[in-house]
Each structure stands twice: as structure tokens, then as C-alpha cells.
């Protein structure tokens, strides 16, 4: 038996160099579950980036092999798929989506010396741990929450504001930022509440908001719950100004909410699709019948920065690429040039205000 194993191992070792040299990268996001629309965005962007890079000869002459895994935005599953990716021998992970997944998974990647670059996790704690392997290509909730709070303060000074969150790492994180920033501005929030993500019945909460005389509802949560809230609100004749964040940036919101989401405001980084660097990629995606909105281009850019840094460093060794990502740059991406600070956050990340109208979202104000 032992001989057989040794023989097989020897055979495998011999057959190695004959195959095409490949470098493996992981893509981790919620491919199933209530946030599956975002998992799809991540995967579409990554697929396109890998295809484009491989067409151009790969990274350092090696073809890229993409391994997609599903964390369902569940912290336990995130750790388990992170370990799978480690076993598979990936050098870099594009993901995860939800902060509640990215943060626990980042410990696994850090321990094993693998790069994690999240295109979408905005919770500050994600990069605040000081791990050299952790990056993100999106902004932070302390930036996003500040923009939302300032917008509310300037444009809705007389509103009775309720700030809701879904008790998730991300939702509560961003809502707390909004609460803190509103408090700093001397703005009084009339009502605060947390609901449980994945709840289907919000009628009691809506009656409560009605009773409190709320005219503006800020929600830190994901699109599936927010869509149900606006829908059930309309059924009770409750139509306040809704204000949400980057977790409603998908047409799936409108599929659930329909016209009840009309006029909803949200914060999201300034549009990337219009960026000249992005035009070619957007055209390719549209030709393949894929929607380039939301986090698709962020996922694309995540793989781009990694490929550029690896090329510049002359190796795919994560430690060296991580150092290169911070010291080199700015990196040219479909989002425009990106540089990273010492924590692994994007330098000068900005947020704009978008407004939902008739099934689409568009920039409403570039600044609060």
C-alpha cells in the first residue's frame, strides 16, 4: 500500500511540469441565500477579469485558474470555505462579500499567508486588525456612514428620522456610523431599532414607525429585507423617504419592492461604469448579456490590482505581492487608479448619493 502511494506521488510529481503552469485564485461570496444577487455580481466580475487576463497571456506566463466558493454570507460557512481555498492552494481570494464573512475568513487567510482582497466588505473592522494580507477595493463604512449622515442633516433637517439595522456585522456597523455621525452633527434620531435579517414579516415594525411619526427611514441592511420593508410599508400606507446603503445596489431590490422603492436614496461609490478604463469591460459584459452594475467592476478591479502587483513584483508569492500592493501603485483599474494605504484600504475612497427611480438607480448628488 505504502509503495503504491509513493509510486502515485512520484507519478503526480513527474506529471506536474508537463501540465500548463497555473496559478489558482479563489472567489468567495454568497452564491446562494438571501444575498445571492451579490454573489453573482462578484462571480461575473471575477469570471470576466480572469478570462481577459488569460486571453492576454495570464500572470507571469501562468494561466489563472478560478475557484469559486459559496459562503452564503454565513460566518461559519465562510471560515469553512476559506479553509477549502487554503487546501486548494490559492494565492489570493477575491472576496468575501458580506463583512460578517470577510472578517472571520480574514483570520484563516492571514494565518496561511494568503491575500484577501474584498471588493465589497465595508465594515471598518475588516482592515483594522492590522494583517498585512488584507485589502479592499471598496470604501469603509466610517466614510459611507458620514456621507449619509451629512446628507440627511443638510437636506432633511426637519425629518423625524428612524435608523434601523439588521443586526448583521455590516448592517449594524453602518447604521451605528450613521447614528454616531448624526449625533456629532447635533441631529436627534427619533427612533432606533434592530430587526433580524431574513425576517419576512415587518408589519409590526412598520406600525411602530407610523406611530412614532417617522418621515425618513435609514436602513443598514441588505436588499432582500429592505425590499420587504418598503413593500409592507406601502401596504400600510406608510411612505416615508427611505435611505439605504451599498447593499441595495442590485436590480433584485426592485424585483422585490417594485414601485414601493421609488425615490429611495442610497450611498455608493461614484459611478465606475462611466470611467473610460471601464468602457471596454462594460461593453464585453453587456455583449455577454451580463449586468455590469453594482459590485461587478469592483470584483473585476480586485483581480486586476492583484495581477498588476504580481507582475510588478515578479512573483505570485502573497507576502511579496501584499508589500507591492501597498508600496507600488497607483494601480490602473476599471475603477480608475487605486492606491492602498498602510491598512490595505483604498486611499481617497469617495461616496456619492444615488436615487432609485423606475427600476434603476442613478447618481443624485456627488457630495452631501
Amino acid at each position, binding site marked *: 500500500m505504502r509503495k503504491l502511494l509513493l509510486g502515485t506521488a512520484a507519478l503526480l510529481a513527474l506529471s506536474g511540469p508537463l501540465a500548463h503552469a497555473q496559478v489558482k485564485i479563489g472567489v468567495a461570496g454568497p452564491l*446562494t441565500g438571501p444575498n445571492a444577487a451579490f454573489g453573482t455580481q462578484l462571480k461575473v466580475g471575477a469570471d470576466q477579469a480572469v478570462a481577459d487576463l488569460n486571453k492576454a497571456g495570464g500572470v507571469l506566463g501562468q494561466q489563472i485558474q478560478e475557484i469559486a466558493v459559496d459562503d452564503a454570507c454565513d460566518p461559519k460557512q465562510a471560515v469553512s470555505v476559506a479553509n477549502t481555498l487554503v487546501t486548494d492552494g490559492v494565492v489570493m481570494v477575491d472576496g468575501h462579500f458580506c463583512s460578517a464573512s470577510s472578517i472571520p475568513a480574514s483570520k484563516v487567510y492571514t494565518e496561511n499567508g494568503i491575500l484577501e482582497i474584498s471588493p465589497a466588505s465595508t465594515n471598518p473592522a475588516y482592515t483594522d486588525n492590522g494583517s498585512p494580507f488584507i485589502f479592499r477595493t471598496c470604501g469603509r463604512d466610517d466614510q459611507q456612514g458620514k456621507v449619509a449622515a451629512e446628507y440627511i442633516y443638510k437636506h432633511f433637517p426637519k425629518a423625524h428620522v428612524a435608523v434601523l439595522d439588521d443586526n448583521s456585522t455590516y448592517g449594524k456597523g453602518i447604521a451605528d456610523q450613521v447614528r454616531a455621525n448624526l449625533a456629532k452633527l447635533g441631529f436627534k434620531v427619533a427612533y432606533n431599532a434592530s430587526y*433580524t435579517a*431574513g425576517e*419576512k*414579516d415587518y408589519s409590526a*415594525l412598520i406600525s411602530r414607525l407610523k406611530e412614532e411619526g417617522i418621515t425618513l427611514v435609514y436602513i443598514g441592511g441588505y436588499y432582500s429585507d429592505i425590499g420587504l420593508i418598503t*413593500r409592507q410599508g406601502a*401596504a400600510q*400606507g406608510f411612505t416615508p423617504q427611505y435611505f439605504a446603503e451599498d447593499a441595495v445596489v442590485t436590480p433584485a431590490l426592485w424585483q422585490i419592492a417594485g414601485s414601493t422603492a421609488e425615490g429611495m436614496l442610497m450611498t455608493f461609490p461614484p459611478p465606475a461604469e462611466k470611467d473610460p478604463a471601464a468602457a471596454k469591460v462594460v461593453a464585453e459584459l453587456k455583449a455577454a448579456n451580463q449586468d455590469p452594475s453594482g459590485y461587478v467592476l469592483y470584483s473585476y478591479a480586485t483581480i486586476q490590482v492583484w495581477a498588476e502587483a504580481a507582475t510588478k513584483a515578479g512573483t505570485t508569492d502573497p507576502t511579496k505581492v501584499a508589500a507591492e500592493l501597498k508600496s507600488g501603485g497607483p494601480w490602473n483599474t476599471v475603477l480608475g487608479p487605486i492606491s492602498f494605504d498602510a491598512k490595505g484600504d483604498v486611499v481617497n475612497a469617495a461616496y456619492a448619493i444615488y436615487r432609485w427611480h423606475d427600476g434603476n438607480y442613478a447618481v443624485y448628488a456627488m457630495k452631501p
Partner: protein
Amino acid sequence: MAYALQQLINGLTLGMIYGLIAVGYTMVYGIIGMINFAHGDVFMIGAFVGIIVLTALTGITSVPLGLLAAFLLAAVFCGVYGFAIERVAYRPLRGSFRLAPLISAIGMSILLENYVQVSQGALERAIPNLIPGGFTLMDENGFVVQLSWMQISIVVVTLIVLAVFTYIVTKTPLGRAMRAVEQDAKMAALLGIDTNRTITLTFIIGSCLAAFAGVMFLLYYGVIDFYIGFNAGIKAFTAAVLGGIGSLPGAVLGGLLIGLIEAFWSGYATVAYKDVAVYSILAIVLMFMPSGLLGRHEVEKV
């Protein structure tokens, strides 16, 4: 006052849906003493059949006809599922030790969830509100109490379904057979009752109830995914236990109580801890009434 009334309406509607699912749990438990954990997933399949039928029929027939078709087809499909689940997962284990069918049921539940996820996709599916509108019940200092047609239909449909079902259990030969099997399966078999057939029919009827609940859930909330069976199933199971598992009126009472606790707790205390409130009350009730509100003590016959 107006606010309390609105919360009462919210709670009653939610409670009716819980109650309808809970009846399915309680029925199966009553007859074979087993918790059918796949019941929540049959409910989910009912909702999916409903959305497929309604999407296919949109624009072809009028809304009432479409709804009727959705209810009927969902009931037929779920009946077949109930039949198949009982045959495949439970009947071979009936003589086995007590935990075997329970584990088989959990396996069935996971199987159904994954089957729907693979065949229907992981994304949420939504339909527009098919029974829009309602009327204003009262207007007190600007607080408008809305009662939607949807909420009225949920209560009415649930009551009709439960009335028909109670009639079946109490007045028909099938119901008599069911009660006999429930009391003593071996003795019932000795007296000429086809226990296998009775148990199969119980599963089919229970699954039809789950189908009705699924379609109503779809109509009321408008959004479903392959995972809805889990949460709804847990709450309905809690309702069945609270009301006294094995007791039909108990299941409805349990459902209504949980719906009302959730609504009033969210309305007057904090939204975040409503599940804590539900389960605390469950624990307190079980401490003083271990067989639930309307449950009977098992009398050991010697």
C-alpha cells in the same frame, strides 16, 4: 387605541399563517408520534408551485381564476410530495427506534431545500401584490389603521380550510380511522382499519394544508426563496408545541399566540428581542403545562 388595533391585525394575520402550518405538524405527530421536519419544506414547495402557476397564468386568465389554479395545483403537487416522502423516508423506518424517522425527516428537509435551490435557483422570486388595496378602519390623530383585502383573505381562507379539516377529522369515516390509529395503531389494525392507508392519507392532507399555507404566504409577502420553509417551519413547530402537540385547535391557538406576541412585543417593547419573547413564553408555558396549552397527558394503557 388605533395603534393597538393595527398591531392586533398584524399579529392575527401572521398568527393565522403560523397556525395553518402548525396544524400539519400536529396532525402527523398525533397519528404516528413523529415530528415531520420536512413539513416546512413542503410548505416552501407549495409556495414555489404557486409562483410558477401565477407567473405562467399572468395575463392569460383573470386573477381569481389564477389564484384558484395556484391553490389547486399547489395542493395536488404537495399532496404527491407528502405521499412520496412518507413512502420513501418514513414508512420503511416505522418499526425502527424512535429517532430514526426524525433523522430521516431532517435529511428529507435538506434534500428538498437543495432540490428546489438547484432546480429553481438560489435567488429570491417575487410577484406583485395580486390583491391590492384595502380599507381604512379608523383614523386617530393621523394614525391610520389599514386593513388590507389580503389580510382579510388570509384570515377567511385559513378559517375555511380549518373548518373543512375539522369536519374531516370529526365527522367522516376517514377521520374516525385517523383518531383510532392515533389512539392505538395496533388495536385499530386488529379491528380492520387499514393503518397504512390512513397514515398515507394523513400525510397527503397535511401536505395539502402546507400547500395552502405556502400559497398564502406567497400572496401576502410576495417574496419567496428556497429557504423560507426553515424559519416558518421552526415558528410553526413552536406554535404546535405551545398549543399542545397533537391538538388541532391547540396548533391554531399556538400560532395566533405567537403572532400576537411578536406583533405586540415589537410594537411596545423592542423589535430586536421579539424571538426571545416568543421562546421565553414557550419555556414558561411548558414549565407549568408540559403538554402545552391544550395538549392531553399521554395515558399509559396497561
